[in-house]
């Protein structure tokens, strides 16, 4: 048995496979269908300072090898999370990370400040890349100054590891990565969804309520691998790779490109137990190829 333990910015995980925000609820939704303890970390649904109703239905469209969504960060706000959800998830035997979002550096910081108080949340993922909210979200993630301003504001009030989730919808993801590293980010998640669109030609209208949405699933994988590879050459902090991962081979591809860990997103919808299957598959692959540790393949092509 190869060693698949990883440590991302101080977060100790027994497998490099995590579940991506927005695809795994608060973990509890999947509890009947997969052993949550066998997941490296669960990143819970995007949380904002104030409650958000999200966008109107329809919020989803299936596309070739992928799906578009425009959920728009529907959540009940950080206070509700701390009071009603945290007590239910704090004793789960895995790393529970919170994805923090906002529409101004101040409300990212206000949200992170409250999560800083939660003992059993070892880190946050900072979402500066949501394509589905009008103000904020991706607006910060597409410029170096915007990205840096959010990380700086949160860094001042949040004292545990910060993983910054980057947008692929940029000219140079490496520049953004460097900018957030310089402001004290501890790790990076690459990548959030790609902005896309789909039209129902019979009804002559967009399939999504706000016309555009974020593309995820196997269709985006090559773009994500490229982003991880470019970012890995630009920064020293660890990278968590995601974008269309649905098999152990996919995960290994990301790790060879420079990711120290991976997240599974859309594939959870197809097989709720896929994250654990991928962990087992990584282990088998390492054994079959004579590796003793998963560390040996991280950045193998760099």
């Amino acid at each position, binding site marked *: 048995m190869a060693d698949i333990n990883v440590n991302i910015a101080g977060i100790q995980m027994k497998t490099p496979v995590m579940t991506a925000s*927005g695809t795994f609820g608060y973990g509890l939704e999947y509890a009947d269908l997969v052993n949550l303890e066998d997941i490296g970390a669960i990143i819970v649904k995007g949380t904002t300072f104030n409650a958000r109703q999200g966008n109107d239905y329809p*919020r989803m469209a*299936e596309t070739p090898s992928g*799906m578009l*969504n425009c*959920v728009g960060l529907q959540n009940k706000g950080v206070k509700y999370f701390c009071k009603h959800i945290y007590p239910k998830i704090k004793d789960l035997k895995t790393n529970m990370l919170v994805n923090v979002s906002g529409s101004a550096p101040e409300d990212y910081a206000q949200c992170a400040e409250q999560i800083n108080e939660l003992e059993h949340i070892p880190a946050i993922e900072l979402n500066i890349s949501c394509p589905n909210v009008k103000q904020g979200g991706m607006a910060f993630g597409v410029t170096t100054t915007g990205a840096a301003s959010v990380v700086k504001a949160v860094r001042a009030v949040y004292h545990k590891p910060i993983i910054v989730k980057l947008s692929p919808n940029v000219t140079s993801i490496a520049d953004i990565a460097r900018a957030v590293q310089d402001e004290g980010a501890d790790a990076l998640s690459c990548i959030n969804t790609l902005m896309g669109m789909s039209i129902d030609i019979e009804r002559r209208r967009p399939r999504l309520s706000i016309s555009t949405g974020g593309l995820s699933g196997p269709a985006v994988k090559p773009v994500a691998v490229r982003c991880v590879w470019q970012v890995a050459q630009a920064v020293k902090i660890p990278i968590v790779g995601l974008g269309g991962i649905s098999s152990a081979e996919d995960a290994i591809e990301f790790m060879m490109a420079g990711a120290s860990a991976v997240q599974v997103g*859309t594939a959870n*919808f*197809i097989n*709720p137990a896929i994250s654990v299957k991928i962990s087992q598959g990584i282990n088998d692959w390492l054994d079959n190829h004579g590796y003793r540790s998963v560390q040996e393949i991280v950045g193998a092509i760099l």
Partner: protein
Amino acid sequence: MRKYQKNLIVSEVEHLSEKYVLLKLTDNEPLPEIHPGQFVEVLTPNSKTLLRRPISVNYVDRDNNKLWLLIAMIGDGTKAIGSLRPGDLLNLVFPLGNGFSPVQKVGEEVLLVGGGVGIAPLLEYGKYLKENGAKPSFLLGARTAADLLLIDKFESIAKVYITTEDASAGEKGFVTQHSVLQKKNFDRISVCGPKPMMMAIAGYAKQANIPCEVSLENMMACGLGACLCCVEKTVKGNVCVCTEGPVFNINDLTWQI
């Protein structure tokens, strides 16, 4: 209620028409508890589509340990499901959603209104109501007589009222025009079918002051309340149809009826 991911065995495939297939699935273990009106997420057995397809449970045959799914073959996903053969395996995540209301009082008259493939969950619900002391009746609408599905099964459970748009069976017109709605007083109504039909019946029920619930079929991805794609606007805000529904009391929705 515990959820499962299982490979069920396709034991029978009945082609009801060019468009509709009835799949009867079985398992080596007894099927889990399933409430009428709940649904399953089916993994489509082809590579053209990515996501699972939510399909309502048509009937649970406990004597033979069989779960029936009525499939309307419309897109690539449902066509692939409909082309399965006996002996094939079908991967299901189930049972999902809340299901229809339990019996409210013994002897209550419950009208179950369905149209198109929306008739599917009403068969199981009608059976449940009858077995638990209520008096169900069915009101089923279709374009023509050829589009009426499983009528003998419905008739074996309760009285069936029919409308067709071309008068080829039952009364002519839409379900809302059937004379039984004027003649008989029902204690409550449950509806599953195309949204305009559900809204029309909901409007009738509201006016007649009859409690009414509808089963929605919003597009969904996870089926577990995680992705928040299938939301419906309610008096409590946006809620997931897959977990808070698919069955809603019309008073909880924000429909303009």
